[in-house]
């Protein structure tokens, strides 16, 4: 599973996208968020962050799988 990164999350991770190995058995948005926070504790300093699945903001309970477009959304600041 690949997670798209934007803004500050690219700087924190030092990457353009996150590769999430299928060995990790991450099946929900909440599990993905927890894994991200474990791997990159600095993400915990953000005001908040969301996960988007197929370009919609996703609830923690949502199941996720390989074929979906998954993105990490730091606090937005457009406008």
């Amino acid at each position, binding site marked *: 599973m690949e997670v*798209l990164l934007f*803004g500050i999350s690219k700087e924190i991770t030092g990457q353009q996208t996150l590769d999430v190995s299928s060995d990790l058995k991450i099946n929900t948005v909440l599990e993905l968020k927890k894994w991200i926070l474990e791997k990159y504790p600095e993400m915990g300093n953000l005001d908040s962050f969301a996960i988007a699945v197929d*370009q919609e903001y996703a609830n923690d309970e949502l199941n996720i799988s390989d074929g979906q477009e998954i993105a990490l959304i730091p606090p*937005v*600041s*457009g406008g």
Partner: protein
Amino acid sequence: MKKIELVSEIDLNGLYSWLQHPEAGGIDLFIGSVRNHAHGKSVIKLVFEGYEPMAIHQMNKLADQAIKQWPLKRLLMIHALGSKNIGDPVVVIGVATAHRNDAFEACKFLIDELKNTVPIWKKEHFTDHTVWVNAHP
């Protein structure tokens, strides 16, 4: 009719013509631009990054919500991406309605919601450092 765009440069000329509609007596146009300071410090420039397909999708959803809520004749939402200098327009929201209160309300709704939900990020460049806005409490 709606126009939703992400662009590198916002051209304000022609927006009024696009918003004109024979049944619309009121047009409200909100233009957000780069200020020369933030948190008391001097901003040199801003750089905007967007998750483009999701940003367009979310802007369309907001536009559709506004079209349901108010009788809008025209609606435009344009956001700039990339590097912007002081005074450059960064975002334009425009609506045309028969009655002006609808125009003000819809325009305010669209810019407020855009700022809350559309996946675009702003990095402020100061003389000696840069900051991703909103990232930290």
